[in-house]
């Protein structure tokens, strides 16, 4: 560990995630005891467990890639990337998402690793935001979901285009600062064991610590999403689907609450038949970038107010993009 690295080392308190979990459970238990309703708990458990089951395998995939970057990619490579001009790094990193089959839970640890190893923060963020939308599995599932309505290509192009624009804009707006300003320090960074013992050992140590770190925030985020879904009646949004603007904002809110994996969300978006197509696009682009479970992941990975800043950038970009898309396809 270098000297400047040690200033990064302010361990996050383990009490924080634990207390949050207790709070969530306590709220759930309180609601249960007032209503005396087992059905409520069943609903919560089914939704909660199903999101975790779907997310954890991808967290592991992300942790694997992240550990491989840490252990097997030499420092020289990142130094070379870091010297490239911003105008080239940023779009290149966003386009890198096309080649990288990791959805949103996996791309967060990878981006963190890329940034901490010297990639420009803006480029790292652009990659993180783009890969859950642009990756091949997601685009194929989008095409499959919409091909039944003969809109496969239209939606794929719309989603990839708007996702790319959002990633570049948000990366540029939020990430143009020092990596230390952006990343939240992590206690495990202090124990640097990558240069002792065989590389295989270092690889699995990093993999394990990344999986554990991300895994517990996925659990917390899924609990939040499930609690929201259990408590809030969803038909309050369908009553306001009349206009494209309100419809887009409403579906962005739904995307936040549902916290679906981006490889699966197109099948859900296509079922929102009562909303305009532009609003469905807003759902598909906003969800992979900001949702309830990601809010926890981002909170653990980045400094304060990152989620707020990202949301403030993402809402107008997605809204404008979805309205423009609606105007194009509605002709």
């Amino acid at each position, binding site marked *: 560990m270098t000297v400047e690295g040690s200033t990064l080392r302010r361990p996050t308190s383990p009490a924080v995630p634990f207390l949050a979990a207790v709070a969530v459970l306590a709220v759930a238990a309180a609601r249960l005891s007032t209503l005396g309703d087992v059905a409520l708990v069943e609903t919560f458990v089914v939704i909660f467990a199903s999101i975790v089951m779907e997310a954890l395998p991808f967290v592991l995939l992300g942790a694997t890639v992240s550990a491989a970057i840490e252990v097997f990619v030499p420092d020289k490579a990142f130094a070379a990337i870091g010297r490239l001009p911003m105008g080239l790094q940023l779009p290149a990193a966003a386009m890198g998402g096309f080649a990288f089959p990791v959805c949103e839970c996996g791309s967060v640890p990878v981006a963190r690793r890329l940034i901490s190893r010297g990639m420009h923060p803006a480029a790292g963020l652009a990659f993180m935001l783009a890969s859950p939308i642009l990756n091949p599995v997601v685009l194929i599932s989008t095409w499959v979901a919409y091909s039944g309505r003969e809109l496969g290509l239209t939606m794929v192009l719309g989603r990839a285009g708007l996702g790319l624009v959002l990633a570049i804009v948000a990366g540029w707006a939020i990430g143009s600062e020092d990596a230390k300003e952006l990343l939240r320090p992590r206690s495990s960074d202090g124990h640097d064991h990558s240069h002792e013992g065989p590389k295989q050992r270092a690889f699995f*140590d990093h993999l394990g610590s990344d999986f554990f770190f991300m895994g517990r925030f996925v659990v917390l985020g899924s609990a939040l999403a499930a609690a929201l879904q259990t408590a809030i009646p969803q038909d309050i949004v369908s009553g306001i689907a009349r206009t494209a603007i309100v419809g887009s904002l409403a579906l962005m809110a739904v995307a936040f609450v549902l916290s679906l994996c981006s490889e699966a969300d197109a099948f859900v978006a296509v079922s929102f038949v009562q909303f305009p197509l532009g609003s469905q696009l807003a759902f598909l682009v906003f969800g992979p970038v900001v949702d309830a479970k990601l809010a926890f992941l981002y909170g653990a990975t980045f400094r304060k107010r990152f989620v707020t800043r990202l949301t403030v950038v993402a809402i107008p970009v997605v809204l404008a993009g979805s309205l423009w898309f609606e105007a194009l396809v509605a002709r």
Partner: protein
Amino acid sequence: MATVLVGWGSFLLWMALSGTMSRFLGPRTYWVAWFGAVTLLLTGAATAVNAFRSPGKRAGRADWAGVILLSIPIALVLALPSPQLGAQAASRKAVGVGALSSFVPPPPKGGEIGLEEIHYAGMSREYADQVGITEGADVDLVGFVTHPKKAKDGTFSLTRFYISCCAADAVPYSVPIQAAEDLDDDTWLKITGTLGRGTQGFVVTPTAIEEIKEPSSPYLY
């Protein structure tokens, strides 16, 4: 750490083998659970071998918090005998059909007339014609009993959840049943009857109501 990795791997494997998974995921995402089971078990094994050969640093409090949090979902699933989405979830997840600006019905799936088709047919006459849903048509439906907010006292609806990927995206479809007697929430029924027009969409007048055991896959996909 190895314990939790192996634990989750075995949990997913058990879910996949026992069929419990169908309560949580749709067939489109089964591969995720299989993929997770295999990779988690392999990673867990490698981590365990490494820890056995040369014990690393001791687990800190942050590690324990992670262990506890990651075990909560498993504990909850094992604690409830057969959790599934029922009438309570239907009351939260129901998507209203009131304010349609430009309803474009999904393409007909073909096959028998189910709750989903009846739901859409109530919204669009064009769709109803495409799938051949008319007043007086005979239907054969399986679902559970719910009592929507707007329903009159003493009547119930027959409901079934449709899942595309996982339980988080479940959408309930239901049809009002014009039966003489009311039944409790979450009772599974097989109803044979004829379609009729109600104030909002279609209703079913049953000729036979049979109480059944919960189907092996409670949701439709």
